[in-house]
């Protein structure tokens, strides 16, 4: 599939990677603790339901006028991106660039034969919910930027890279510095969301698409400033110059 819009590809890759990391951690965690057969069955069922939902959802979106689409999706991306930006700032301020921590589950009550419905449902829900968020990101970026191929390619690349890495390095995947990735993606989503929402109102940006770069810089600056303030509030000694 040709990548016609590299910025959409990269942004979709990073945004999808955050969701796929969560998805892979759930699958790896459930599979390791409860067994792989039912976990893969649940993941497969989740993907099948997701595929049907994406087809229906995508068709419905394509009938919406582009400016309305930009306004609605831009607004949604902005509030969604601001949630990640806020959480990313808090996590980086509190813990730095640490990993996510360990997933755990009780090993009691695992059936010796047949389907383990606990593993099935956990895996199914993880794939379906995180997959829906990936689908939302792909449809949002793809349709609004009129680069659906690049958006699909970005999400697919994220899925392949993270899934292969997750399966190959099951222990390492739980330590990926998600806070930093969340902060970066929150900045990107907020920037695109702001641009599209305002453009959807019919308001012209100075320098047109280049304004997106300025928005990324603006939100990154704000995130760096707030992270520093939160760290100083949590550790007042950091704010004082060393003496002697």
């Amino acid at each position: 599939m040709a990548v016609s819009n590299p910025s959409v590809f990269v942004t979709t890759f990073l945004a999808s990677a955050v969701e796929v990391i969560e998805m892979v951690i759930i699958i790896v965690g459930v599979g390791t603790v409860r067994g792989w057969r039912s976990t893969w069955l649940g993941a497969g069922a989740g993907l099948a339901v997701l595929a049907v939902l994406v087809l229906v959802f995508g068709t419905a979106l394509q009938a919406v006028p582009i400016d309305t689409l930009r306004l609605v999706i831009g607004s949604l991306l902005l509030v969604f991106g601001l949630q990640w930006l806020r959480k990313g700032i808090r996590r980086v301020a509190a813990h730095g660039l640490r990993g996510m921590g360990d997933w755990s589950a009780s090993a009691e009550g695992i059936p010796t034969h047949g389907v383990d419905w606990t593993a099935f449902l956990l895996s199914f829900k993880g794939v379906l919910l995180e997959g829906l968020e990936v689908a939302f990101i792909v449809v949002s970026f793809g349709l609004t930027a009129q680069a659906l191929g690049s958006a699909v390619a970005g999400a697919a690349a994220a899925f392949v890279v993270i899934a292969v890495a997750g399966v190959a390095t099951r222990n390492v995947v739980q330590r990926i510095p998600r806070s930093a990735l969340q902060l970066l993606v929150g900045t990107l989503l907020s920037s695109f969301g702001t641009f599209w929402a305002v453009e959807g109102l019919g308001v012209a940006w100075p320098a047109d698409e280049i304004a997106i770069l300025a928005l990324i810089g603006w939100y990154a600056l704000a995130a760096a400033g707030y992270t520093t303030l939160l760290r100083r509030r949590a550790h007042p000694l950091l704010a004082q110059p060393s003496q002697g």
Partner: protein
Amino acid sequence: MILRWLEGFGRFWYDFIIGDDWTIAATVAAALTATWLLHLAGLDAWWLLPFAVVIEVGLSLRSD
């Protein structure tokens, strides 16, 4: 059962879009409305939304 499904569906989208601080979504809605009104009045208003949300994120972080 349908009501329970609708409730779950609504809760999912509420969490997905609004999250744990509704003031951010409210600020985005208010800033977009103000931007549209300024635009109708013939004024440049592209700057309003990015400034408003950065201030709101700061207030939201402060209230945590």
